[in-house]
């Protein structure tokens, strides 16, 4: 286990506060926690790709960064109008 994978494991621990806020907070707070969690997941994927020395895994981080932005914007739009 190298420094990259240790960093990825530590980062995953950061998901716990996000999950807590999603479960216990208001809808708006849950959305903010989701945004933070998506950033965290993207960077974790990047760290795993570097830790395993597998270039194609970095594509997952790239796709996650783009899709999480689109997904969060959709949630924001729903929250603003209908939810």
């Amino acid at each position, binding site marked *: 286990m190298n420094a990259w994978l240790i960093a990825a494991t530590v980062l995953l621990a950061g998901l716990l506060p996000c999950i807590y806020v999603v479960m216990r907070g208001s809808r*708006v707070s849950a959305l903010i926690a989701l945004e933070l969690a998506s950033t965290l997941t993207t960077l974790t994927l990047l760290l795993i790709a570097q830790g395993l020395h597998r270039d194609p895994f970095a594509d997952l981080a790239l796709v996650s960064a783009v899709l999480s*932005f689109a997904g969060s914007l959709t949630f924001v739009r729903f929250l603003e109008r209908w939810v």
Partner: protein
Amino acid sequence: MKAVVVDVLLGVGVGSILLSCLGLLASGGPFEQLHFTGPAATIAPVAIAAAVIVDESTPSSMAVKSVITAVILLVTSPVLVHATARAIRVRRHGRFQILRDELARKENP
């Protein structure tokens, strides 16, 4: 020396994200919580991309992908924060049309 630099950069990146997560948990309202998405989306991607570049030492596809990921996060995060703050404002006080009406009333009482 290279390993130390990589470890320091990783520590900065991971530390900023963990502090952001704890801040999210500790802060009260959604506007305060929005501020804590900042370090995770600015400091951490830059630090981790820099760590990858230092670790690779020669130009590689991994370094390019990490830089592109960091740039995407840097660009999209402020947009997302702005959109979320706007949504919170609209949920609490209604559309921005109200402000425009108030402005018109002040100009033509």
